């Protein structure tokens, strides 16, 4: 009997062998996405160790680095600021794991989730591109992601090998937009959208889009913060008003639902976060430098009430 089960185990191991070899080969190659928006997660997660508490930590999607001027916030509030947001498609569970053990007393965790994050839409290939072969980032991948991460590996690996063939990797980057030390985008940005918004990315905001899994993670993050003696607050990220296709009732429904479900302070209202098209740079969530100034100003005013 033992011999029989051993044979089955050997068969399964032999099936896994080619995949393991491919994984080992691709993982041994240098990183190629480290200079991209997704690759900034490595630097940002490193800031959690480098910058001591108390500090302000922004968590969310790509709107975070485009909407918050960390240097200004630090100056105005007298607290260092870290912008952990990279993309909504990493999912809040991943950010929560990254933060685990790093939240210190007096920290202020600001959650700025975009619609995709509330929908709990996760792009596993994007996450591979973010974490690549960095053990500290791989460790933070939630167990619930593992299956899909494994399924997305082939696509990531093929993409990475293509880029390596094309000569990337030696320089360690594909492109390098101007990210500041604190993880926000510091390059000067003007509105470049032809119609004032991305016409192929209409945004629907209503209470039905909020996934229970997202709410579970919000509550979990709030609890993590509370345990560590930190403050957890919620902010609606900027959204291009022109791209929103929900009516007033739906918007009000979403806001009241989130306020009911999330036991936290809110830094702004959903209406405040809907901004004119002229303030958006290259997507319906990415602000221009001017838009960033306005949004940051709102946040600073709200954060003052939190910091006292």
């Amino acid at each position, binding site marked *: 009997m033992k011999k*029989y089960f051993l044979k089955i185990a050997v068969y399964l191991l032999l099936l896994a062998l*080619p995949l393991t070899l491919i994984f080992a080969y691709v993982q041994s190659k240098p990183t190629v996405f480290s200079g991209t928006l997704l690759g900034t997660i490595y630097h940002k997660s490193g800031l959690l160790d480098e910058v001591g508490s108390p500090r302000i930590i922004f968590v969310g999607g790509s709107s975070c680095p485009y909407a918050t001027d960390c240097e200004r916030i630090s100056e105005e509030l007298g607290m260092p600021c870290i912008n952990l947001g990279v993309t909504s498609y990493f999912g809040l569970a991943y950010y929560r794991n990254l933060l685990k053990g790093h939240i210190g007393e007096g920290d202020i965790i600001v959650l700025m989730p975009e619609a995709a994050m509330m929908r709990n839409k996760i792009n596993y290939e994007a996450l591979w591109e973010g974490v690549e072969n960095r053990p500290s980032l791989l460790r933070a991948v939630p167990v619930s992601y593992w*299956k899909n991460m*494994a*399924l997305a*590996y082939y696509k990531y690996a093929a993409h990475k090998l293509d880029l390596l063939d094309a000569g990337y990797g030696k320089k360690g980057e594909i492109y390098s937009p101007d990210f500041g030390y604190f993880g926000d985008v510091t390059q000067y940005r003007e509105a470049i959208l032809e119609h004032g918004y991305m016409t192929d990315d209409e945004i629907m905001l209503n209470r039905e889009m909020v996934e229970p899994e997202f709410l579970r993670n919000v509550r979990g993050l709030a609890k993590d913060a509370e345990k560590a003696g930190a403050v957890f607050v919620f902010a609606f990220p900027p959204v291009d008003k022109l791209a929103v296709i929900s009516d007033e009732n739906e918007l009000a429904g979403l806001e009241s639902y989130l306020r009911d479900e999330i036991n936290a302070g809110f830094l702004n209202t959903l209406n405040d976060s809907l901004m004119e098209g002229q303030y958006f740079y290259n997507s319906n969530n990415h602000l221009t430098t001017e838009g960033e100034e306005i949004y940051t100003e709102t946040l600073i005013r709200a954060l003052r009430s939190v910091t006292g």
Partner: protein
Amino acid sequence: MAFNSLQFAIYLPTVCILYFILPVKYRNYWLLAASYYFYMSWNVKYVFLILFTTLTSYLAGRLLGRTTGEGRRKAILTAGIIASVASLFVFKYANFVIGNINLVMESLHATGRIPVLNVLLPVGISFYTFQTLSYVIDVYRGKLPDEKDFFVYALYVSFFPQLVAGPIERATNLLPQFREVHRFDTARCSDGLRRILVGLFKKIVIADYFAIYVNEVYSRMRELNGTAVMFATFLFAIQIYCDFSAYSDIAIGSALILGFRLMENFRSPYLSDSFSEFWKRWHISLSTWLQDYIFVPLVWSRWWDKLFNRHTIDGKKPAVLPNLIIVFLISGIWHGAGWTFIVWGLLHGIYRVIEETVIPKKWKKRKNKKKAVLWLEVGLVFVMNCFSLIFFRADTIGDALYAVSRIVRDFDPVHLMTYMQPAGLEEYGQLLWIILLVAVLFLWDLLNYRGEGFEKLSSFRPVLRYAVYYALGLAVVWRIFTSMSDIVIEFIYFQF
């Protein structure tokens, strides 16, 4: 929980290990609990429906076992059948009937509409309903005694390997097996694992891959050339065969590991040289069910005879032609509540009638046909089957007719690649891969023509045998990891 999901990969070993660890007297209870969990993983609410069908058919069986008067027995049989069929009708056919009545009323400009029912089609309802019907009828016919133990009977109805997509088991085969003591047997386990491996290969490597092109073409039929539709229909014929027979393979394999023998459901159907043979090789459990419980009773029914069977062929034998049409219509309706399925069934009925009336008996019985002629017949049956599958796959009759007209109008197989390009078939490598998979399937069907494929496979020299297992396993794993999808593609027959 689909057979091709990670959950099932955990579920099956867990069920098997606990089954063999538990004392014999608890094993059926464990299987019953596991089977209900399996069913509830789709929709918890519908457990009440399967319970209702189980309970009513169980009671009908018990009453039939105790009652002797023929009139009473008939009344109990009728009540048992109605109870089972009623829930099938409500959940599967009511909205179809209501929709058609409303259409008629609309065309007559009549006021008022019947509201449609807000129900979802419960997974496997057609399969387990037919299983309960066969039990009640068999008890009535005295083919088997009524089952006294409710839990054993409930297990017969819900036994997880064949619960949601067959094979439609007969109580005469399955019920006695629940009384047997099954010990873990390595040879039997290997047989089961082999079948599961072949099933996973057919489903994940062939069916799901072909489905990409089939779905693309059929969803954009009106934008694409008829040649693409024709090619997609050919692929669909392979897809549906691999998809459904894969389910049966995994079901039979899973049951085999536990020590249960389920009936064969497919035996190289596309190598049939007639439709009569095709239906002895395709969905065998359904076709034998229809034969035993619909066709034969109709042929021998006196009142039915008065209606139809007077129309005899050359005045010699009782006519079976109207009954053939009826049986295939029922087969079509069984598959789905839609006109496309009815037409599909009707077409197969017509094929069979043509076979019975046009082809001389001598030719049918001739053993020494030339190989070329035989292959020609096989090809013709396959092509005619593909034609019927256009109706099976299309969403509406209009779509199916449009597809047929486009195929006839645009027929240009030389430029297949050009026409398939918009559907995603962009490189010759993809076409080569499709050809390779069809060739592998063809070889397998040749090997399995007499239903001995697995025995033959296990009689290969060890090196060759393990190479085949490894290649199949690797193809499955490779396809899972390269399909770039976290979505488990459900088996087509789940919708029936």
